[in-house]
């Protein structure tokens, strides 16, 4: 997941730095000594030491160019580049021009689209980076690398890191039984995900009851029953064609009577365009009033992921999402789009067909991973 985007992000960083440094170079043409420092290959080095440079640079930002010159002695060529930029800045010059950024930003836009980030979300990321970088003066004292990286990190985190809801904390803190209902379109892996979560919760010492609210799809009862047998948990189900709300309701009653900690309620997959089924979902949400509603979608979904997420959130407000088939997907943009458009976090990633193939999703770690250097 995200392999493609990772490469592209790194390209953008280099391009943006190059653009910026070319400018810096032009401005500093009188300081001919560091003319060759501004090529792309060297950009990585600049940013590798960005963290260190930043700390010192901030302190020196307002000070005299002479001071800056004295600073990073041992830093070979990249130090020179940094110094020249710092000094040009000290003379009050703006180094990054919005116009110069357009080409790298356009490349980045396509990179995001290629990674299945939804178009409006991609545009928002670009806007943030543009606002952040263009005409930037003050922060520029750090280094182009750090600056571009910061802008990227901020932009990515701002769309992906939505206010935290930790599923496991929530289960631990809630009054028992906790009812969790799973929604999503057909074939995204709701039932399999429920089985995986049941296993995970049982492993953590909770007791679990499953409720098959999918009274529509052929084979749904059998599918969940086999999982229940395998995991040794109780399944509440009704005849095919029954009322899904009643099934989940029964399961909650069962949990109350038998001191079961968690009720995991499956629902039939439905396309968000089917108003009958979406109304049914609203009813379930209203009558059962689950503690949490989790939206399940597949990581391989493209631009449409946001439409679905939004529609399901509207019908039965979701608290978080789980993306399945993350092991099949090298793009991963759906994760960025879905959490951004719903304002709810991605809780887990499904990463295979085994019961244990469920990984907690950590946006910070993801962004770190995306921006990490490959070498």
């Amino acid at each position, binding site marked *: 997941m995200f392999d493609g985007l990772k490469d592209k992000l790194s390209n953008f960083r280099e391009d943006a730095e190059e653009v910026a440094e070319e400018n810096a170079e032009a401005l500093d043409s009188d300081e001919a000594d560091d003319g060759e420092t501004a090529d792309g290959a060297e950009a990585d080095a600049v940013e590798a030491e960005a963290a260190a440079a930043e700390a010192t640079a901030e302190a020196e930002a307002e000070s005299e160019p002479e001071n800056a010159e004295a600073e990073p002695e041992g830093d070979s060529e990249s130090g020179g580049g940094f110094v020249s930029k710092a000094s040009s800045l000290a003379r009050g010059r703006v180094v990054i021009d919005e116009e110069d950024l357009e080409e790298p930003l356009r490349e980045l836009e396509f990179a995001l689209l290629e990674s*299945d980030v939804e178009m409006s979300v991609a545009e928002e990321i670009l806007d943030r980076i543009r606002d952040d970088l263009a005409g930037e003066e003050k922060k520029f004292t750090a280094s182009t690398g750090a600056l571009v990286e910061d802008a990227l990190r901020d932009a990515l985190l701002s769309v992906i890191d939505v206010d935290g809801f930790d599923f496991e904390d929530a289960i631990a803190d809630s009054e028992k039984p906790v009812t969790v209902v799973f929604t999503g379109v057909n074939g995204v892996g709701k039932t399999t995900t429920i089985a995986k979560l049941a296993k995970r919760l049982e492993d953590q010492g909770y007791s679990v009851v499953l409720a098959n609210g999918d009274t529509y799809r052929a*084979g749904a009862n059998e599918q969940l029953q086999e999982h229940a047998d395998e995991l040794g948990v109780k399944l509440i189900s009704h005849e095919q064609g029954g009322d899904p709300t009643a099934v989940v309701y029964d399961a909650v009653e069962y949990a109350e009577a038998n001191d079961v900690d968690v009720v995991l309620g499956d629902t039939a997959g439905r*396309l968000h365009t089917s108003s009958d089924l979406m109304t049914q979902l609203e009813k379930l949400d209203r009558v059962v009033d689950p503690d949490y509603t989790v939206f399940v979608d597949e990581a391989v979904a493209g*631009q449409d992921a946001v439409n679905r997420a939004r529609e399901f959130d509207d019908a039965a407000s979701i608290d978080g999402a789980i993306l399945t088939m993350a092991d099949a997907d090298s793009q991963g943009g759906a994760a960025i789009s879905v959490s951004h458009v719903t304002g709810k976090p991605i809780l887990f990633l499904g990463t295979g067909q085994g019961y244990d193939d469920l990984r907690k999703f950590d946006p910070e770690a993801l962004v770190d991973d995306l921006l990490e250097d490959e070498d």
Partner: protein
Amino acid sequence: MVLDDLGSSLRGTLDKLRGKSRISEEDVDEIVKEIQRSLLQADVDVSLVMDLSESIEERALEEEPPGGTSARDHVLRIVYEELVDLVGDSTEIPLENQTILLAGLQGSGKTTTAAKMAWWFSKKGLRPAVIQTDTFRPGAYDQAKQMTERAEVAFYGDPDEDDPVKIARDGLEATEDADVHIVDTAGRHALEDELIGEIEEIESAVEPDRSLLVLDAAIGQGAKDQAREFDDSIGIDGVAITKLDGTAKGGGALTAVDETGSTIAFLGTGETVQDIERFEPDSFISRLLGMGDLKQLTERVERAMEETGLEEDDDWDPEDLMKGEFTLKDMRKQMEAMDNMGPLDQVMDMIPGMGGGMMDQLPDDAMDVTQERMRNFEVIMDSMTEEELENPRSVGASQVRRIAKGSGQSEETIRELLDQHKMMAQTMKQFQGMGDGDMQRMMKQMQQGGGGGGGGGGFGGMF
């Protein structure tokens, strides 16, 4: 429907060209940007989009519009040709004995598609059988069994056997009598080497005449890699796109087709076994360009007519609509036929001037409301006399009261029905005696009028 956003935004951009005879570089630039945007939003592969837009740009600027052609028509033709080139022809599916293998990612809709295809073949007069080899997913056997019962086709599966290759082999033997064997497989993705190895074994055991890749319309840019991997392992001859009744555009399927050098075979458009269509490139592009999809509508109409009990009503011929008086009986037949064609919104999508842009302007529940209205109308017509049905214009106020009592509907609804009939009768008059050329002119008119005007009026009144 597939790419219909492209239809509406493209139409918008193209409309700006109306009246121009020469086309500037900026015009082309704008159109190309619009096309790029729409295709990207439809999940078409980024590099494919770039190739396509480049050729459109090049041709639009270099090729001289043939004499008398407006700039708009010229560009439209180029876009059309390039898109036809991109989507290719539909996969050839001969109506003869054959074995078809289905492959695809988990949850893409293989089992449902298998049952739908079997239903489709059975409607074409062949005897199909579905063989379920998914031994991994719990419930897969039961699902396939129930779906094939709904489709009323033969089924083979073995819930106690866990070797899919053996099931495939046994299944072919057990369903020897069938003309068409459709082999369903467990979901797998390109990176699961073991499972890819397994499907290769199934493939060599059943020796399919064609292997189809089943793809969810919502799949993103990953379609490319998945398609390539499946093509490398078993060879993909065609693609079936599923869940097209959602909002996803199905552009991933175009990518897959491009990547595998194959074509699109079937479209899945709903949850029942009848919700399957053969892919038709021409009608697909027509729909894409917002020109409606007459060919598929005709097919559905014919099928629906067959099922609308012509036996009990031999004197009713749809051709009658085109001559003579349009009566309430005709209207009822038409409503029944439409009902048999499937959900109204799908049917509307195929009527020229009704799809794309116009559908977007309707409130979400317009179709549900319309369907309910149609049901009410039917109840009312049941309470009317033969004479009233034949001659609805003669129905007076006292008759309306009587019908209202008899049908339990409000007088208001009955008057609506009569108005509706009047409007439809007028529309039918316009259709009568029209040649092909007139039809096209009318389609154009409807398009230019945003779909609402002209001949669309009759249907428009239903909302």
